[in-house]
Every structure is written in C-alpha cells, then in structure tokens.
C-alpha cells in the first residue's frame, strides 16, 4: 500500500515537472473546442445544437492524446521494468498510473467543461448533466485507454496506432455521455443514460487494469 | 436479345445492382488470389530454405 502511494506520488511529481502536463492536456481541450466556432461559424443556435457532442469529442481526444504519457516514457528509460520489479503486482502499478492519469487529465477537463459550455452557448439545463457525465465518464476513458497504451508500448511511434485501437473502444462513453446531456437539454429523463455510463465505468474498474497489466508484462519480455 | 438487354438493365437499377455484385466478386477474388499466392510463395521459400539447409548439413558431414 505504501509502495502504491509512492508510485502515485512519483507520477504526480513527474507530471508537474515535465512541462506541467496537467495544464497542457487542458489547453488541448480548450484549443480544440475553440477551433469549432471558427470552423462551423458563430451562429448561437448551431453551436448550442452541437455543443454536447463537440465537448465530449474534444474530451475524448484530449484524454486519448495524453495516453502516450501513461507508460511510454517509463518504458523507454527502463523505469517501467524497475516498477514491475518493485514487488507490487503489475495490476496495481497499472492502476496507480491510471489514477494519476485521471487526476492530471480527466479532472482538469471536468473543471474546464462548464466554461467551454458557456462559450458554446449550451443551454443551462445541460450543465448538471454535463458535469455528472464527465465525472462518471472520464475515469472510464483513463481505464480503457490504459489497455491501448500498454498494447502499443513496443511499437515505435505508436501514437496513431493507439488512436485506432482506443477510439472505437471509447465510443460507448461518448454516446452515453452525449445522450444524457441531450436528454437533459430537452427536458427528458437523463437518468437511464447516466446509469448505463456508471455501469460501464464500474465494469471497467476491475477489467481494464487486469488486461493492461497483461499487455505491460508482454512488452517487457 | 431483348431479354438479355432487360436483364442487364435491371429495371433501371443497373448502376446499383451490377457494381454491388461486381465489388463483392472482386473483393472475394482478390482475397482469394492474394491468400493462395501468399501460401504458394511461403511453400516455395520453405522448401528452398530446407533444401539449402539439407545441402549444407550434407556438405558439413
């Protein structure tokens, strides 16, 4: 347990030192969302119509792009093999890294989302649903993403392969997330969508670290 | 001749029906040809490698 906490502390320290990763994932999210009004045009009605989708897609992309930080740097400089040699089961090491990933990516996105929702003219009813779905959905992004990150470890410049593997797996999160917000915006009941999203995250918590650990072990062979 | 022309016209939908069947046959044929060719190539390489090896082993003895 002490080692587990030590690993999380280490990863957070590195995240802060290496160019303020937290700050930067957020910046990507902000930039992508601001590109849209530029591409689509400024009409408020159109923007409001596409707001939940744009926000969630941008969140997906921001989470996915920061995945290469998850294991790659540690793999390349030998830290990952040192971590697995620490005596802690690999599943726990992976879980520690997933937690850091969420703290440095999912959480900032969650906090920034309301501001962007205002920029995109999103209707007020959607706010609570937006926050709630982001809170429940972003951990699933980190969990599922870990599998892709681990699988592409031995692949040089695996970044784009990573996106091919991970984005299809992210689609349910996107769909449940958006449909919950849409339901709320139209005054319908968002609960079933949110419950489905929660079920997805719950199922991912035990399964994903296990699958990712298998992939990590493979990459060290 | 009229029957054949009618057949090819597909009730005015020739532009849809024939490409659909065509692409199916093309893709299936391509998959088949590449697989069989790949298999033949692999057989050939394998036998030549084995011959090579047998000859060398014979010469070493």
């Amino acid at each position, binding site marked *: 347990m002490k*080692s587990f906490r030590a690993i999380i502390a*280490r990863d957070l320290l590195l995240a802060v030192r290496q160019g303020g990763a937290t700050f930067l994932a957020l910046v990507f999210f902000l930039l992508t969302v601001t590109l849209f009004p530029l591409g689509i045009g400024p009409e408020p009605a159109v923007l409001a119509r596409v707001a939940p989708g744009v926000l969630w897609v941008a969140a997906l992309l921001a989470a996915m792009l920061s995945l290469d930080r998850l294991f790659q740097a540690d793999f390349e*400089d030998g830290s990952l093999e040192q971590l697995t040699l620490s005596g802690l089961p690999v599943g726990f090491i992976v879980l520690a890294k997933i937690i850091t990933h969420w703290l440095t990516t999912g959480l900032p996105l969650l906090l920034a989302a309301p501001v962007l929702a205002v920029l995109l003219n999103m209707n007020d009813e959607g706010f609570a649903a937006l926050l709630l779905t982001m809170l429940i959905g972003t951990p699933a992004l980190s969990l599922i993403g870990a599998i892709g990150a681990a699988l592409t470890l031995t692949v040089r410049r695996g970044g784009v392969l990573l996106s091919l593997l991970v984005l299809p797996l992210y689609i349910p999160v996107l769909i449940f997330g958006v449909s919950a917000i849409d339901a709320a915006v139209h005054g319908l009941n968002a609960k079933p969508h949110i419950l489905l999203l929660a079920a997805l995250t719950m199922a991912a918590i035990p399964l994903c670290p296990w699958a990712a650990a298998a992939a990590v072990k493979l990459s060290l062979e | 001749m009229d029957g054949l022309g009618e057949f090819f016209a597909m009730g005015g939908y020739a532009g849809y029906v024939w490409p659909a069947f065509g692409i199916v046959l093309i893709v299936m044929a391509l998959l088949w040809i590449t697989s069989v060719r790949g298999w033949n190539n692999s057989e050939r390489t394998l036998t030549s490698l084995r011959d090579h090896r047998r000859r060398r082993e014979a010469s070493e003895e």
Partner: protein
Amino acid sequence: MFQGRDIACDRGERRIFSNLDFRIMQGQALVLRGPNGCGKTTLLRTAATLLKVARGKLTWDGTDISEDPEEHRARLHFVGHLDAVKGALSVRENIAIWAKVRGSTEDRIEAAMAAFEILHLMDTPAQYLSAGQHRRTALARLVASPAALWLLDEPTVSLDADGTACLQRAIAAHRADGGMVMAATHIELGLDDVEFLQLKPQ
C-alpha cells in the same frame, strides 16, 4: 541460495542458450562472460523474471521462483542498460523515488549518494549530468534500498576509475552482509573471490 538448473532461454522464437546451470550462495558473486550476443543480458533478465525460462527451473532456497514472482522481484535489484533516471528530476529525487517505492528509509538515500560520490550533484537535474554521473545515479539505487540479490548488466559502463572503485566498495559491503551478485561484463570488475560463468554463443 539462488540456483538455476538446466536453464534454456528464447528470444524472438530463437533459442539463445540451453543446459545452463549456476548457483550463487550467500556472499558470493557470479560474473557472466562471453562475446557480444551470447545471452548475458538475456540471462540476467530471466533471473529478474522479466523473461520466462523456456526450459529448466530457477530456485531460491529450493523453491521455484515462478511460484511467487512478486516475492522474488522484491528481493532483487536489477541495473541494466536502461537506467530509469528521469532527466526532469534531481539526482536526489531520482534515488529517493526508488527507495520509497521499495519502502526504504531517508538515511539510506544520503548513504547511497555518498557511496557513489554524487552528494555534490544532489540538486542537479539529471538531464544535465555527464554519462558517468548518470550511471552513478542509477547505481546508487542499489544502496538506497536493501535487496538480497543484485543483477548488474555491464555496471561499469561510462564510469571512471573512481566510480568503478565506488562500485567495488558497494559490492564488497553487500557481499559482507550476505548479499549475492550476478554481473555481466566485458572488462575487469576488480572484485575478489568471484566465480565466472562463461556463456558460449550457440
């Protein structure tokens, strides 16, 4: 006692070596030798459970290490070509991280830096280190937390005479405590009372 009996290892579907036997008792050092590509790194990684044995058995005091690989991992240190030193962290932080992950104490961190004579670089970010200073930082990990078995893959690479002497002293102290060492090298390590294991290319 760490023992391998009739070990065989594969890399990329190819048998690298087979029928290999070795035994390391408490306080002993085993030096692996052999030409480039004969499998020294492979054997060390196998001993660290990073690779699987293709045949044979590795045992620790008689029990197969594959029964509880986590336990075996916790009792060894592995220092390889990749040195797990983060450029963004200072020398001290780099050493402290691994000490903490392995549940070691503060004072050992100081001792480790002293042992490799890098106390003066304590607060330097590792990206500004020269090759030898980098290596010393990686090696300091050995001293910063205790482990019964040290697996060292060409540990003296980039070290100057002083650095090599530091390593020799660290190894001697470790062995005096009953520790075991298994090291691969091409040049003289300057250890006394070692056994050699010569690997032959297949």
